[in-house]
């Protein structure tokens, strides 16, 4: 289990699809942050995951520094690993160097090409942000080539999707996490455009795999995995409050990031950092979210579907167990497209595909190759401090 720290709800951007629009309010105190880390250390996990989230977490760099320092010298002796998710505007060279030194995974949000990105991702003053963020992404990739990039697709930006992914790949992005804005007003027409773009992306995926390029494109990788790792895929699926807990600036606990703005008086609050997790509340939410999804019982793809994400269901339909039609159609489309990719690459016994998806040692072998080629430098993998 990892803890997501919403350091504050303040943000220097104003993306119109944000599920937690920025607002002024409290900033997490160091006391609250430390208490979260104590809670993480008290779990039975061998390592403790901490995600710095927002609002925009880099508005509070000093707090990030002090909590990382605390984690690195935690009395429990347990290893902490850190991740920060940023819009990139404040991602300066100093922070990138700091993140590299301390092994902090830095994920950046960029929606692709300028028209796709600037359609929704605006600075707080309403100005476009692409020109500001792009140089920061390039700097980040130079230091950490496997930094994840989050891309959100909206109905009006769907036509740019394949160009956007190709653009990111051209920049050197290797780890692409692409998801829909499920809450947007998708129509049959815009969805057909999305399907067309995914056909183009399937062709690109085949091409890049045949060229033995190393990359992770989440929509296809996850669906390929849902078949290839079908024996354990069920365990990988999202379950509310089980694998991660979100903490708001005041120290109140929630089952996932989208509930963190609901406030301590809501039914979604499952405790606070001082009194601990309210197990009764957590169990109630978990059990509610694990119910069979209406309409999915007889679906042939139920076992491979992302319909278990209660957070997403709640965001789109207002109910943990009701699936939005957008999610249903997207999942079906992804599975068919991904399976066609898998079948083609397996039929030709593509070495890159086989090793990437079937060899348990692939991450280590890939790392050895990267070290040898200088893609990653050994010094950057260690913490000199």
């Amino acid at each position, binding site marked *: 289990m990892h803890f997501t720290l919403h350091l504050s709800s303040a943000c220097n951007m104003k993306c119109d699809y944000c599920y937690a629009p920025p607002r002024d309010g409290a900033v997490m105190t160091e006391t609250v942050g430390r208490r979260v880390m104590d809670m993480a250390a008290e779990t039975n996990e061998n390592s403790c995951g901490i995600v710095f989230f927002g609002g925009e977490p880099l508005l509070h760099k000093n707090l990030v520094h002090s909590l990382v320092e605390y984690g690195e010298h935690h009395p429990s002796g347990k290893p902490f690993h850190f991740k920060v998710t940023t819009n990139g505007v404040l991602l300066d060279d100093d922070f990138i160097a700091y993140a590299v030194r301390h092994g902090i995974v830095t994920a950046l949000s960029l929606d692709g090409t300028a028209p796709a990105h600037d359609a929704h991702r605006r600075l707080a003053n309403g100005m476009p942000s692409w020109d500001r963020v792009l140089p920061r992404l390039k700097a980040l990739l130079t230091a950490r080539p496997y930094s994840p990039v989050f891309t959100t697709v909206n109905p009006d930006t769907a036509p740019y999707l394949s160009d956007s992914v190709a653009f990111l790949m051209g920049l050197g992005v290797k780890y692409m996490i692409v998801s829909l804005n499920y809450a947007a007003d*998708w*129509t*049959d027409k815009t*969805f057909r455009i999305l399907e067309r773009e995914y056909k183009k992306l399937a062709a690109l995926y085949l091409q890049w795999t045949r060229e*033995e390029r190393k990359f992770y494109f989440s929509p296809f990788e996850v669906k390929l995995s849902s*078949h*290839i*790792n*079908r*024996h354990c895929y069920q365990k990988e699926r999202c379950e509310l409050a089980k694998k991660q807990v979100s903490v708001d600036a005041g120290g109140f606990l929630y089952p996932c990031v989208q509930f963190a703005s609901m406030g301590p008086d809501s039914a979604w609050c499952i405790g606070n950092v001082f009194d601990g997790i309210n197990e009764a509340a957590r169990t109630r939410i978990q059990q509610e979210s694990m119910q069979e999804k209406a*309409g*999915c019982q*007889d*679906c*042939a*793809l*139920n076992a491979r579907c992302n319909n278990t994400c209660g957070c997403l269901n709640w965001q789109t339909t207002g109910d943990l167990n009701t699936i939005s*039609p*957008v999610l*249903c*159609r997207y999942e*079906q489309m992804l*599975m068919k497209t991904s*399976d066609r990719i*898998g*079948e083609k*690459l*397996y*039929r030709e*016994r*593509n*070495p*890159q595909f*086989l*090793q990437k*998806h*079937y*060899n*348990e*040692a692939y991450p*280590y*072998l890939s790392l*050895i*190759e990267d070290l*040898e080629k200088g893609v990653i430098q050994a010094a950057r993998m260690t913490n000199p401090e």
Partner: protein
Amino acid sequence: MKASPAKRYRKPKYPDKLEVLEAPAILRDHVPSTWKRSMRVTGALAIFAGAQAGMLTGCISGAQGKHATAKHRSGMVAPIFMHGEGRGVTGCVVISPPVFLSEEEAAQVISETLAKAQITVSKQPYRISTAHFSEIDADIYSPKNKIAMEFVGMNDYFKMGGEPTNSSISSFDFQRVAVGLSNDASAKDVRIGIFYDPMTSTSEQSIDEARAQSKALLEAQVKDFIDWIKVQGTL
């Protein structure tokens, strides 16, 4: 926008991980060209391949049985699919002797299991090359499907490396001998399957029941081999 559940969905025509790990040669034989150019990567690949095979033995020990961690010279020799202990003792003071399957009984089980998978066998001979023993005449051969099979039973035990015991009690380890033969055998254009006598004990069942169990375990070995050759694309 409306959506409806998928009423039917055909099984994808690419394997799941367990199916591939049952036939690990596919990972050894298909390596990215960039890896081939790196001695460090190929060295690590060899180490991990061995470790992975070891992990697998534990991983797949459920209904599908285990497979042995043999090193297969050419990728043409199947791993040993472990159904049945394949070891035990017999002799003067052993009160629950194991049941041995004869070559004829084994051949019948193997042929019948193959027939269920539409694999026809031939009386045509096929010789399996080995590194340390003389060539072995395969017990079963299917030229059409390019597969040959050898059953390690009492008749072959000593000539295939089984160690004699100098006492009134004889101990046998057919599984170990089968793994040794699997390491030793090689082929260029025919996939080789090696099975062993499960050697079921009669301590908790009658001789007839033990014999039936041995046949069932041998059949399970053959079925796993058939699955393996399917993954290889031979069938």
